[in-house]
């Protein structure tokens, strides 16, 4: 837990204030107040993240405090603690947005678990906040690069639907920019001040997806020690990015369909109906229509999602964007690493005519590595070719436009980074196991997820796709 999180304890009983202070102060910055009518001023002044609120308070009772917090949209997570067993007050408190409700005398450890969960949630929110700050500019449409016909068409489609609640389905190969488009949609829409969340349906274990999406109630299953708020709920009013939607199991597809239709759901193990207004942006690198034909994807869901289809072509099919990308990534990594590298015209031509099996991500990685590794001020074609060969010797060479590049050239320098070693090793291992991810992972003693991450990171594309 984090000392920087601030907690305000509002209770008129000195014993409870002392106890909560002693329970929390090792990990948090704790303040206390005795009176209900002081709570709001204190939060306004000291910006507490969490409020532990007793309901029977002099000056202003806890329910009224909660009401103001909810009306004024004060950003604080509230846990109500009360000595009363009255169910109705509990319901009122939860309706007014309290995160949890605990009855005195409570269990110290359970109380700490609740606080820990809140911290996790705050941490997530913070991440998004910093992201939002960092990229508040970055995700302007102007920063989604592209002047090709295909990209211009995408921009104009998105501009028309940006402020609507329409679901968007982005399809495209790995590394074509599905995620950056999803973020651009969110941060350019009128939902931008609300959370953006994403869930990769291909990396989360199937039986956890339900609770990730919809949350769960305490005790919903073994291990559900406390309530969890799902991504749908967190991103209500915001945007939820469902990556690799084609991997969703059939029963999750049914649940998702219901949320899209009714805009409501229940937490796993709960029966309270939760209303949300979450915008869905889904992405897939598989052909969903094909999955529909094979009865592996619900047709009705497909139509629900495909309200605004966005298709991202392979990078080699929009070559006119490549020079823009080169400049964009050069600038980005020169700034990041404090360099001033440039790429000469021949090298640029080579890059533009390359096949880019790993699409934009691969191009980005290549430029990042050039900036990092190059000892010269200007990079020529030889260095680029050497790097690409190292990258992906099996990949088809550059397009027909560049004959010179077809020959094998010796590496421009002897510098081999750890990353490159790892990448080469990983590629060999994959080849050895016939590109079977599970066997490779086992042999390398790393998880499948790590392999997938590394594949992405290095822009490795598996040519021999194994059917899942």
């Amino acid at each position, binding site marked *: 837990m984090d000392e920087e999180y601030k907690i305000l304890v509002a209770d008129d009983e000195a014993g409870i204030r*002392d*106890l909560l202070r*002693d*329970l929390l102060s090792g990990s948090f910055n704790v303040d206390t107040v005795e009176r209900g009518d002081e709570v709001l001023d204190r939060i306004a002044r000291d910006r507490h993240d969490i409020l532990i609120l007793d309901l029977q*308070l002099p*000056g202003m009772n806890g329910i009224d405090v909660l009401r103001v917090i909810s009306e004024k949209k004060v950003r604080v997570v509230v846990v109500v603690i009360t*000595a009363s067993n009255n169910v109705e007050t509990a319901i009122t408190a939860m309706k007014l947005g309290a995160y949890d409700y605990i009855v*005195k005398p*409570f269990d*110290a450890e359970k109380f700490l678990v609740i606080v820990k969960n809140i911290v996790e949630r705050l941490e997530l929110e913070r991440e998004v906040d910093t992201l939002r700050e960092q990229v508040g500019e970055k995700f302007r449409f102007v920063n989604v690069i592209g002047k090709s016909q295909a990209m211009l068409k995408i921009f104009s489609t998105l501009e028309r639907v940006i402020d609507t609640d329409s679901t968007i389905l982005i399809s495209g190969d790995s590394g074509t920019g599905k995620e950056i488009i999803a973020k651009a949609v969110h941060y350019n829409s009128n939902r931008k001040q609300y959370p953006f969340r994403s869930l990769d349906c291909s990396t989360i274990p199937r039986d956890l997806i339900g609770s990730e999406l919809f949350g769960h109630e305490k005790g919903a299953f073994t291990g559900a020690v406390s309530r969890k708020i799902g991504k749908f709920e967190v991103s209500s009013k915001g945007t939820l990015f469902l990556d690799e939607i084609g991997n969703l199991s059939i029963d999750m597809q049914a649940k998702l369909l219901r949320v899209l239709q009714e805009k409501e759901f229940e937490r796993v193990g709960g029966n309270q109906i939760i209303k949300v207004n979450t915008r869905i942006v889904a992405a897939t690198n598989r052909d969903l229509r094909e999955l529909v034909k094979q009865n592996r994807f619900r047709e009705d869901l497909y139509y629900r999602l495909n309200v605004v289809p966005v298709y991202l072509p392979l990078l080699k099919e929009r070559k006119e964007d490549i020079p823009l990308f080169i400049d964009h990534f050069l600038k980005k990594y020169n700034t990041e690493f404090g360099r001033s590298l440039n790429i000469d015209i021949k090298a640029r031509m080579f890059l533009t005519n390359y096949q880019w099996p790993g699409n934009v991500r691969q191009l980005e990685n290549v430029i990042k590595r050039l900036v990092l590794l190059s000892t010269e001020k200007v990079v020529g074609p030889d260095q680029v070719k050497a790097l690409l060969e190292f990258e992906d010797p099996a990949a088809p060479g550059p397009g027909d436009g560049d004959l010179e590049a077809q020959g094998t050239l010796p590496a421009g320098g002897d510098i081999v980074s750890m990353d490159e070693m790892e990448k080469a090793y990983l590629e060999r291992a994959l080849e050895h196991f016939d590109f079977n991810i599970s066997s490779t992972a086992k042999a390398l003693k790393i998880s499948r997820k790590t392999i997938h991450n590394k594949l992405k990171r290095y822009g490795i594309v598996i040519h021999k796709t194994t059917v899942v």
Partner: protein
Amino acid sequence: MEGEYLIIERLVRNISHEIKNPLTAIKGYAQLLGLKPGDPELVEKTRKMVVENADLIDERLHALYAVFELTPGEKADIDIAGTVGEFVRSLDDDIMARVSHINPPGGVNAVLERRGILRALHLLVGRFDWKGNGGASLTISLRETEEGKPGLDFEFFGVSFEGMKGETFFLPYSEKKLYRGGTELFEVFATARMNGWRFGLLDGGARRGFYLVF
């Protein structure tokens, strides 16, 4: 019957609510000790907190039955307006400034237990949470009721009496906005009962305040 049952329910709820607070502290410190075993400072703090909170439970329970141990004092012919005036002048200056008292010309005398009147005044006025209700002021007026009995009205301004109900307002621990201790109105009620006085809400709660009829 239904009404009585409601009163009992309210009473039981109020009391258990009030006892649970110190219980929570005791239980919590015991558990905290389990989470950080061997911390000498915490051991000392826990010892102190357990004793303090056990005492608090005792105190709260005592406040509940102490009222049954009240004994009536001597009755004497007293000047009610004079007694109220004397009491008001004994208040701290800043509170006195917020209390006004209105007496009918000529004053009213009656044979009453003076100690009982002073206790009721102390509870209703002296123990009122003046600090917490910064905008509050009070008018005490002496009046004669239809039956010819003298009485006192305590009408408050600048406070809320929300949630006060005729049958239950005096129950222990019903009310914390106006009186911090929680048993003040109950003690007034017991004092009134012992002396055969009536204690209630002004106009059945339509005006914010209490009355005593002697």
